[in-house]
């Protein structure tokens, strides 16, 4: 059972949220407050009002025309150019209403009073049509890509779902590639992302609640969970934390992550972020909650446990023995990525007796020409590697090759030949760098960060310093919680059933239960006895 003993919340958000509106009162003094205004029956005044609101918004289009059935009746379309599906607007709305299409039966007369009804019931060929009487709704709809149709004489506008803007097509995941498994990744459009989840989980219990955040940007967020599996308390907690956010804009899920995460100062991530729909779907099935943000392909899932840093989606698709072996390796890589340079420094400069004599001799021979202490040497190499890595991300594609060649030359060859760096140090740094890439990305940037203090510690106190640094890290990890779940679970606290999916991954037929602390609402994942076996006489 989840113990929300100590709900960790971002401190002080409450008090700050109350007294400030980060969007600023500035905007509302120059324009009329539109929140509570209602539409009037006079289309001209409505248009005037809207034109006032959308003043200098060159992309908002006002199209006025006459109703084909009764030419006295004036209609007006308002939409944002670029956000709407233009064929839909011209074919299904304009054509239908402006051309002479018979709409009324002979015995019914279209008047100003019932025009709206006819337009809605017989004229529009649009899937989603909503009525509203509020100017605010009209404004929101126009800015979200819907088309608003106003009919003269009615204080009600029709919002036609016509969203269709240029979007990046679904492509391969860039940050998390897999050998086996789906290739697709999320895109920047929220709707497409939710549809990807819906396609994987065809169940009405998959709930996708949307809300808007950002006083200025009005970014749409989707809170996704599977009712019946998810712990209601968790959903409530996430909603609660989200509801406290009052910020001008949310451009990426990272904003949300920093605003609602536990342990805001910790270098370790307490929320997972991924651009893979299958990862999100798997997390949802385990009872987690996902937060999708419009405008970014990166989704957040909570709670996030430390062990997830070594879990990849294809662990669950590949054969379990192989997956387990790789995971054990990843644990080792994680340790290497964090401690290898500091271990190297500590041993070379404090405890040379720990090395076998021939190894010590060959390292000593390499280091003979190096003018720096090993710490300085290793530190510079680490920094050099960070430079290359950062350059590799930032540089324009066409010059990539040049940089990699120069970097390989500088680090691999020239530094050794010039006697500035020992070959062993390069091996250590390169190994560390490679090992850090095997860990889940948000975990690897943490390791990257913590490597340096550990190097300082071991350079000043040797293994004693390294060990105390590791102790500090482990104590810190053991004290953390992500949305109520202990961060080191299922290792500490030990949950035996969950160890099946930790440093190893047991076959699917043995993982009968969902993670104990996360999916405790409905623990059973599968029926027992799924292990494939040849038929036996007594059993069927």
């Amino acid at each position, binding site marked *: 059972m989840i113990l929300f003993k100590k709900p960790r919340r971002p401190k002080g958000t409450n008090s700050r949220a109350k007294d400030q509106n980060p969007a600023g009162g500035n905007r509302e003094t120059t324009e009329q407050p539109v929140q509570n205004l209602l539409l009037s029956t006079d289309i001209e005044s409505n248009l005037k009002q809207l034109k006032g609101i959308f003043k200098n918004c060159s992309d908002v289009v006002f199209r006025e025309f006459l109703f084909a059935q009764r030419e006295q009746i004036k209609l007006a379309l308002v939409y944002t150019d670029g956000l709407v599906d233009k064929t839909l607007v011209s074919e299904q709305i304009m054509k239908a209403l402006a051309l002479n299409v018979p709409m009324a039966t002979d015995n019914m007369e279209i008047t100003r009073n019932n025009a709206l009804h006819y337009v809605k019931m017989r004229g529009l060929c649009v899937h989603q049509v909503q009525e509203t009487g509020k100017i605010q709704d009209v404004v929101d709809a126009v800015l979200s890509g819907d088309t608003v149709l106003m009919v003269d004489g009615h204080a009600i506008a029709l919002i036609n779902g016509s969203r269709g803007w240029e979007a990046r097509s679904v492509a391969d995941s860039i940050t998390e590639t897999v050998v086996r498994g789906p290739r697709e990744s999320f895109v920047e459009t929220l709707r497409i992302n939710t549809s990807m989840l819906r396609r994987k989980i065809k169940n009405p219990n998959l709930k996708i609640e949307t809300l808007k955040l950002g006083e200025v940007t009005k970014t749409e967020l989707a809170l996704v969970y599977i009712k019946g599996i998810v712990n209601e308390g968790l959903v409530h907690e996430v909603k609660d934390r989200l509801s406290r956010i009052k910020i001008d804009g949310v451009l990426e899920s990272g904003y949300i992550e920093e605003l609602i995460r536990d342990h805001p100062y910790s270098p370790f991530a307490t929320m997972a972020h991924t651009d893979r729909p299958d990862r999100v779907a798997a997390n949802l099935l385990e009872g987690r909650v996902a937060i999708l943000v419009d405008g970014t392909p990166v989704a957040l899932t909570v709670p996030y446990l430390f062990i997830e840093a070594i879990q990849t989606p294809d662990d669950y698709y590949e054969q379990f023995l192989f997956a387990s072996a790789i995971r054990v390796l990843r644990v080792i890589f994680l340790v290497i990525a964090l401690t290898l340079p500091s271990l190297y420094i500590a041993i070379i400069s404090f405890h040379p007796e720990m090395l076998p004599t*021939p190894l010590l001799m060959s390292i000593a021979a390499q280091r003979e*020409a190096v003018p720096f202490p090993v710490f300085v040497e290793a530190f510079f190499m680490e920094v050099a590697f960070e430079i290359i890595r950062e350059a590799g991300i930032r540089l324009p594609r066409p010059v990539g090759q040049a940089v990699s060649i120069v970097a390989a030359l500088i680090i691999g060859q020239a530094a050794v030949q010039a006697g500035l760096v020992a070959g062993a140090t390069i091996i250590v740094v390169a190994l560390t760098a490679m090992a850090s890439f095997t860990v889940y990305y948000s975990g690897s940037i943490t390791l990257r960060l913590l490597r340096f203090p550990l190097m300082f510690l071991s350079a000043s106190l*040797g293994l004693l310093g390294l060990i105390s640094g590791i102790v500090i890290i482990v104590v810190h990890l053991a004290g953390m919680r992500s949305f109520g779940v202990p961060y080191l679970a299922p290792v500490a606290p030990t949950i035996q059933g969950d160890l099946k999916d930790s440093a190893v991954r047991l076959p699917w037929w043995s993982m009968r239960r969902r993670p104990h602390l996360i999916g405790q609402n409905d623990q059973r994942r599968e029926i027992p006895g799924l292990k494939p076996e040849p038929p036996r006489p007594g059993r069927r």
Partner: protein
Amino acid sequence: MIKKICSLVLVVLLVLQGGCWGRKELGQLAIVMAAGVDRAPGGDIRLTVQLARPRAFGGGVERPSGAQENNAWVISENGETVLDAQRNLEKRVSRSIYWGHNVILVFGEELAREGIRQAFNFFTRSPTARETLWVMVARGKAEDVLNSHSQLENTSAQSAGSMLRMRVGEPVMLKDLSMMLASKGTNPALPRVELTASGRPQGPGMVENIPQGYKGAQQPPVGTHAEITLTGTGIFKDDKLVGWLNVRETRGLLWLKDEIKRGVVTVPSPVEPGKKISINITRGNTRVEAFFDGESVWFDVWMKMEGTLWEQQSKEKLTNPVIYKAIEKAMSREIENIARGALNKAQLEYGVDIFGFGEAFHRKYKREWASMQNRWNEVFAGAQVNIAVEGRIRRTGLTTNRLSEPQ
């Protein structure tokens, strides 16, 4: 917040105030590969160290061929004690002397005859020296033995260490020696090393002069290459060297101490007495039991040896069980002879128990031991030792009989 900052500063200070305490950068160390202790004239201790020269190892850096440098630097200094001598050495060595990777410790013959306790204490006390270093005794001066190169290993110290690790001689680590010295039921036996001519020098830097007085008459005088060689065992009475065992007797010593790893036994053929058969010992164990009837002490030794027949000069059929048994019997007899040789020398010539028989007696007769422990060597010298050897030939290599027979 201020509290937090203060504690952070304190922690950082704690780390920085340590000031790299105890740091010994690899480049600041003079790594001792071998240490030798001799008696200097005037009662001083002469400490010789073989320091590794990493620069000459040439790790990763190409060097012009032909300019082979010596991998080690051998340097000696006198002092009242070993530590004192080391202190004096530091006046000449630019780096701090580092014992952590010392492979061998060699006692000179003269010092060993006077007693090794006076030179041995430093190595067991010093925290950096390993208790797994191999201890040996030199024939002649330790200084001369250390002044050598190895053709295969980086230093001659490593070469000697590897030979002992393969149980070519009696392998004694520092901790074993401490235990032997502490026990009254046994006396130390250390492998004997000396330089012997070993092929031609493989380069200008590899020429040694074998010390005068110990080179055999048939050896060329100078300009030869010499390697540290294990040439037997030095027998100690308590901490004083009293005599030597040769290589064959050393094998008997190893077998009696149940330290058999490998060995070859050569016996005459039962059919053609002039020709030989060699058996490679692969496995064996030795059990010693002490007996005491109130007056005399005797020991029963059971040795079980298994071997593989790997060489046959003669042409008898090994498929014949009678011949096979006869070879096994000859093998047992030879093993007994070898063991007896070591035993006779220890009992009759030197009168010291180097086999640990006293320990076996102690284990069985705890009460009687108390009265005997101080005169154990005399008791041992007079004790009868019955040796029963069960030799077995398990395999005959890739063929059973000879592939071809002489006409």
